């Protein structure tokens, strides 16, 4: 298969999920579409000139994530070292989240937006994009432990926000 065929195949496979990934970061359909396009264009620039891509999906996520970061122009705070001593663990969503939330999808989206960027990022990557913590870690350039901890904290924070909403 030629390079551009491979590339188009990657588009067919991954365009939607990259869009989803971008959307739940910027919450703007138009912006998300532009980001998807930019992601694929840059990927082509790399791939089209002969560089190797082992895992298109991860590559695309990485490019998209970088673009989102540029877009937001933010600095992500780093986890303190002590916290990284924790054992890695993978919270199951059901365990954590038999939250009987009196909430509809609209409101859930709003709550998601209230989450701080760092938590939202890992939660959407884990539970919407369905990436494994190891993959998320590779994409974000963090340690897997860090990611697991962040997910755990993200869920906890999400739960707080949902409960707050219920009592308002």
């Amino acid at each position, binding site marked *: 298969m030629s390079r551009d065929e491979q590339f188009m195949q990657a588009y067919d496979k991954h365009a939607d999920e990259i869009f989803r990934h971008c959307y739940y970061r910027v919450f703007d359909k138009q912006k998300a579409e532009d980001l998807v396009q930019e992601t694929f264009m840059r990927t082509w620039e790399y791939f089209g000139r002969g560089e190797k891509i082992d895992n298109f999906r991860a590559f695309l996520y990485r490019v998209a994530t970088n673009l989102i970061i540029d877009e937001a122009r933010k600095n992500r705070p780093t986890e303190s070292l002590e916290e990284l001593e924790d054992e890695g663990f993978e919270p199951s969503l059901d365990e954590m*989240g038999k939250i009987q939330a009196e909430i509809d999808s609209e409101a*859930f989206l709003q709550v998601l937006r209230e989450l701080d960027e760092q938590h939202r990022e890992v939660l959407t990557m884990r539970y919407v994009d369905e990436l494994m913590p190891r993959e998320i870690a590779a994409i974000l350039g963090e340690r897997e432990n860090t990611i697991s901890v962040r997910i755990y904290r993200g869920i906890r924070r999400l739960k707080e926000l949902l409960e707050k909403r219920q009592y308002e």
Partner: protein
Amino acid sequence: MSKTLNELFNELKSRRLDQGRRLEMRNELANYARANQQRESGRQSFWAGIGSKFITVPALAIALILALSGALSAAAQTALPGQILYPIKTGVNEPIRLALAGSLQSKAQLHAEFAQTRLEEAETLASQSKLSAQVSAALAQNFQSQASSTSVFIDRLKASGDLNDAAEISSSFESSIRAHEVILQQLQSESEKHGQNQGEANGRGDGEVGDILNIVQHKSQQVFEDRVSAESALTATSSPLVQTAAEGKQKAAQNKIDEIQRFLEQNSAHLSASAVAQAGARLADARQILADGQAKLQAQEFGDAFEKFQEAQRTAQEAKLLLRAGINLNLDLNFQKQGGAQPDGQGDASGNPEGPGSGQADQQGPDSNASGKSGDQSASGGSGESGTSTSSTSTQSSQEHHGQGGSDDSGHLDLNLGL
């Protein structure tokens, strides 16, 4: 109803790209990938790629040696399809220039330039009755590819935050496409007449021009949408930024008008009285729009002012392109839009005063499907309403201004009247 977090997240998974947008993007990417086959690592492939596509190997070797000296590549620049140097123009010069272009902005401009060059080549051949069906098809295809790439880079400029360049380049491209629509239409009607006189003896009739014209008209819609969308993005940013942009654009528009005025004066000997008069009228239009923009500026309506200044610039630019084509192709061009009086600013942000002839009924077919990216950009009848938020005030004022023969906006917008 209460749900688990799991269920809530699951609902989010169903979000996806609009089918239409997804397909559109796919086409753009495919075109981009094809047009931008980057050189592979290793020297061999770059030359091999060019060699296999455009030129035979021995000719290639010589051509490259000479191209590096600059003389040949310069000579190739004016080559037309069928001439010996043409493959160097499209196969060597253009890719090299693209490869050397570092920024998004320069790439966008190059693609726009190449798109226009294809049209100029077609027009030159057509004016000499030398445009064959084969060449016409090839030029049309390359034009389409270049225009798509232009569109893609404009999007990328927007995505990267460079809204000024996105607005500037899309506006300039739009004026060029509109001018070419007029030129191609004139060529088509001339070759129709010619065909009638000759009993279509030479077979180089209006069909070839018609094919390219169709494609240009189709693209014209997208180009228009690109510009409106880029303007909207810019005018939606913070007020000081928009103010700065508007002030900058005012100068640019004024400069452009002055430039065309000088051009007109310097070339009046080569122009027909009608062309001079028409160009003069268009410049007067441009000055009026500029004045409208200045009023907006005073009133601190920076977004509207910016759009007005862009429009003034486009008006002047179109006039120049038509003048030049009139000289080069020895054509008598009609700068005014044909078709009935319509209120300005049908649903678009800038109330473009002019555009190519809209009178032809046969435009209905292909273009009415060309709703392209954002259906809400299209004109809706003569009501002067619009889908975009920025347009209403500018629509009003340009309506007042362009009362007479008010035919506004490009022909392609008319197609949506029936919708």
